């Protein structure tokens, strides 16, 4: 067999290189589809809604006059529901993730739990709403309250947090654990002093992705009785008289921003559609801000890792 001549090799290299460039262009186009969609969405919302975003929009209750209507009750509702969701989902999600990754024996039962969690992540959100209606609203008698809503959304994002926790625990090299064991640390000492702190950045990212999903949910909350018109705020959590802290707000009826938006979009008057666009813009800004916080945390925690 003859040796391939230099020109043949040269051609082959050239064609490989051009193929490389073709893929780079395709990849770039694929990226732009996502970017452009987001940009178009933001531009569309901003062109309609930006004019409506004035201080009074945040401090007014819904109204039949589009110009006077605001999102006070719904943004307060959104934030309170998110607090309950985070308080319930974060400890349970991280706890389950740590157990499954660090403690659980590898047997059929663990495998079953893992399959279940993976399946839960794919369950449509309305199904969570139906379950929550039976469990929280009627069985536990939490009623149509912020507590029910927060717990429902917590269940919804639990799989996301568990999966993210496990992924980032797995990213911690096994040698770290072995080193800790070699020095006589118990499993809990290894986990709490080393593995968890190192993976905190990834876990927080998962938590925030989960909360970003929860903040936009409408379907399960409508099922469990979120309201559309509500022109008062829940009880203040801090009181002037003893015992100074009140949890009465947990039982309060509520609305959230996506539901307010949904209602305004379906109104006949075009001015209400502008309000809906403004609400959408604020919701997007909240989600982007949460993502920014996630990026910041990841950066900070990465910097602290010394290995």
């Amino acid at each position, binding site marked *: 067999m003859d040796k391939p001549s230099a020109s043949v090799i040269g051609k082959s290299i050239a064609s490989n290189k051009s193929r490389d460039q073709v893929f780079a262009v395709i990849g770039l186009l694929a990226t732009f589809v996502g970017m452009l969609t987001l940009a178009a969405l933001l531009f569309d919302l901003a062109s309609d809604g930006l004019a409506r975003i004035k201080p009074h929009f945040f401090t007014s209750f819904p109204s*039949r006059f589009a110009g006077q209507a605001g999102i006070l009750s719904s943004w307060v509702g959104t934030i309170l529901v998110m607090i309950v969701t985070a308080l319930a989902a974060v400890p349970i999600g991280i706890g389950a993730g740590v157990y499954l990754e660090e403690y659980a024996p590898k047997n059929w039962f663990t495998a079953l739990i893992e399959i279940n969690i993976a399946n839960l992540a794919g369950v449509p959100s309305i199904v969570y709403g139906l379950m929550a209606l039976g469990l929280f609203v009627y069985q*536990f008698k939490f009623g149509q309250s912020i507590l029910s809503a927060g717990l429902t959304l917590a269940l919804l994002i639990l799989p996301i947090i568990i999966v993210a926790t496990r992924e980032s625990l797995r990213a911690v090299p096994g040698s770290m654990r072995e080193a800790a064991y070699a020095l006589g640390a118990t499993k809990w000492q290894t986990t709490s002093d080393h593995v968890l702190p190192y993976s905190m950045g990834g876990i927080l990212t998962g938590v925030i992705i989960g909360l970003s999903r929860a903040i936009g949910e409408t379907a399960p909350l409508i099922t469990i009785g979120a309201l559309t*018109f509500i022109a008062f705020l829940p009880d203040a959590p801090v009181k002037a008289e003893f015992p100074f802290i009140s949890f009465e707000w947990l039982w309060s*009826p509520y609305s959230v921003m996506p539901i307010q938006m949904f209602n305004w*979009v379906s109104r006949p008057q075009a001015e209400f559609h502008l309000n809906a666009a403004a609400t959408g813009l604020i919701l997007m800004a909240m989600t982007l801000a949460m993502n920014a916080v996630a990026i910041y945390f990841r950066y900070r925690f990465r910097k602290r890792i010394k290995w």
Partner: protein
Amino acid sequence: MKKALLALSVLALVGIAPRAAKAQIVQIDGSSTVFPVTEAVAEEFQKSKKGKVKVTVGIAGTGGGFKKFCRGEIDVSNASRPILKSEIEDCKKSGVQFIELPVAYDALTVIVNPKNDWVKSITVPDLKKMWEPAAQGKITTWNQIRPEWPNSPLKLFGPGADSGTFDYFTEAIVGKAKSSRGDFTASEDDNVLVQGVSNDRNALGYFGFAYYIENQAKLKAVPIETAKGPVGPSAKTVEDGTYQPLARPIFIYVSKKSLDSKPEVREFVDFYLKNASKLVKDVKYIALPPSAYKIAEEHVSKRKVGTVFGGTAEVGVKIEDLMKREANF
């Protein structure tokens, strides 16, 4: 982590702790068609009470509202149709007695594109031919309805099957609720229907009067032919009963128990009936004559429970008929 766990246990404790006495709340849920009216009343009522009484309004739909109402979870149910037999049964089982109060009229409006120059008016049989289940896949051009209309495709737009508007229209036109052809563009959001019809010269659709009024520049309402000639939808034709059979009353249902035991519900209902005529017009629905609200007030003060519709879906009830029935009730 530790803090979060602590917070969770506090949460759990609060869950067990007995709930403090509730503030005065009037709870309302039900039809999204009635929602704008009730929202307007709730807004004004809360203003007049300076925040002492709280009102909440949801949009679970007429059926969803009655479910909650008959379980005794809410004080008032918004309904875009009279209560049905099965719902009356549910209410009876849990001992919920109700007072039926018509609060406004809505006119279902048949609309076409403004460029449509052939449809001057339409008859109920024409509409039936278009919308009945037998028309599915068969009636596809305008000249199949009337030979003098052009041989261009017939594009239909209407509300989805979960809507009370759909129920009423099919009952009034086809003769049986929910009986409709399936091959039309359906949307639960009436604004989608407005867009669809305003962009297609060959389109025809139907939805509530308020959506037509807000989009008059983009749409043309089709007068319905009656014995007295073609009648278009307007406040006047609904009030004098000539716009038929597509004018329908909308209601609130009030729980008798709530009226008796919660003074704030009583106040809210009084406020509703006193201010309805003005507020109904604000949100582009058609108000009942003042005497109708007077009769309703009497029904409230005498606690007349029950329905004047006998638990069936009924179409073409004119304001006048409705008032006679209410007065004799």
